[in-house]
């Protein structure tokens, strides 16, 4: 009776110890199982796609720093993603135009900035996405109003950027998408003066379907 019990205890300790010395392999196993195809998304350190998961719709507050003539373009850009997903991915809130720009609070905001980093004068906008694990916890979009002039319907000259196209792109970042390297896509890294890009391509729709 004593022998089997002692043997059992020894075996349990043996198994425990043999697992205990692992550092790398356990993580490697986890890495191997956790890693996903990027599908156009940001990935965390374990290769998992980063997104809002089930926490939809993502509500964005528009700041008064966004010129009034462009606010409806943001609503339209959000609707483009919603229609493609077949469910409300974004909700645009225009009820608090005094919303403060802060990347550490829980409010997702869209701001227009009259001051922009001199070294980044070719950048039209930036979307800051914060996440924990594979879950996005906050997103803020900053539009460069310093170095670029935008238009909503008709350009006044050949040096204006289509605001709606820019917002479709930035909202793509807000749901976790990276820049795409194969055209056509709304997530192409650059948006030229003469380009209107407001419809999601097949690639964009497939990316959207991977997470939403």
């Amino acid at each position: 009776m004593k022998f089997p019990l002692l043997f059992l205890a020894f075996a349990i300790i043996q198994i425990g110890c043999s697992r205990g010395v692992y550092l790398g392999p356990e993580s490697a196993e986890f890495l191997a199982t956790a890693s996903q195809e990027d599908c156009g998304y940001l990935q965390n350190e374990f290769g998992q796609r980063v997104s809002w998961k089930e926490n939809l719709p993502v509500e964005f507050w528009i700041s008064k720093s966004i010129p009034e003539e462009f606010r409806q373009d943001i609503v339209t850009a959000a609707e483009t993603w919603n229609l493609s997903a077949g469910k409300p991915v974004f909700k645009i809130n225009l009820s608090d135009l005094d919303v403060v720009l802060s990347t550490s609070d829980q409010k997702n905001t869209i701001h227009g900035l009259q001051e922009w980093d001199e070294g980044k004068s070719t950048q039209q906008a930036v979307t800051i996405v914060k996440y924990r694990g594979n879950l996005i916890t906050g997103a803020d979009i900053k539009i460069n109003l310093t170095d670029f002039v935008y238009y909503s319907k008709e350009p006044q000259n050949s040096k204006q950027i289509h605001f709606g196209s820019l917002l479709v792109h930035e909202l793509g970042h807000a749901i976790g998408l990276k820049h795409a390297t194969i055209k056509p896509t709304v997530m192409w890294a650059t948006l030229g003066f003469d380009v209107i890009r407001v419809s999601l391509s097949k690639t964009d729709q497939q990316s959207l379907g991977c997470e939403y």
Partner: protein
Amino acid sequence: MKKIFLPISIFILVAAVVLLYQHRTVRGPSSVIMDNDGVIQLPDSDVYSNESKKQIKRFVLRTLDWNMKTSQNDAPQFSIRYENIKIHANNSITDFCTLYPTILLILEAPNVSYSGEHPEIMAYGTCQNQNTIAKIDFVFDMSNIRLSNWDDESPDKWRVKHFIFSETTKTQSRNINITQYEIFSVLGYSIEFPLTLKKQ
């Protein structure tokens, strides 16, 4: 009672043997070992083969000793210190700094992206021999940050993305990258540093 314990004991014994076998198969005995004098012995006696270099780097990554300090001008600094590491091949002994005189360290902010890209900091370190210690200091400043248009709430947590060991021997133009995955698979966890950077 014996009838129950015997099969259970046999099962556990078999499971333990299988797990131990798997453990050895997965880990495998490293061909890079460190003797009492801290000399890395390479059985194949070729420090310039890719496999040997990879093993040297893995060994170094596993044993590196990080120190963080702040310089007088508030620029954050890291130093890596390797004690008494020499590469022993055939009859010659090459010290670490001779083999890898410079190392490029790239840190990234893990939990934030700017339009799909992580903020990154790059810093070169020059290996310096101090008696038996190979020391590499990395100094970071804002000019090395690839994405810099953040607001005052800048990332305060960074992790190692790449170590790039630069060689001056034989293949001066060809650097060998140790990727993030390789670092993780060796260390089993991400190396994260608290860093507070001030916007200029």
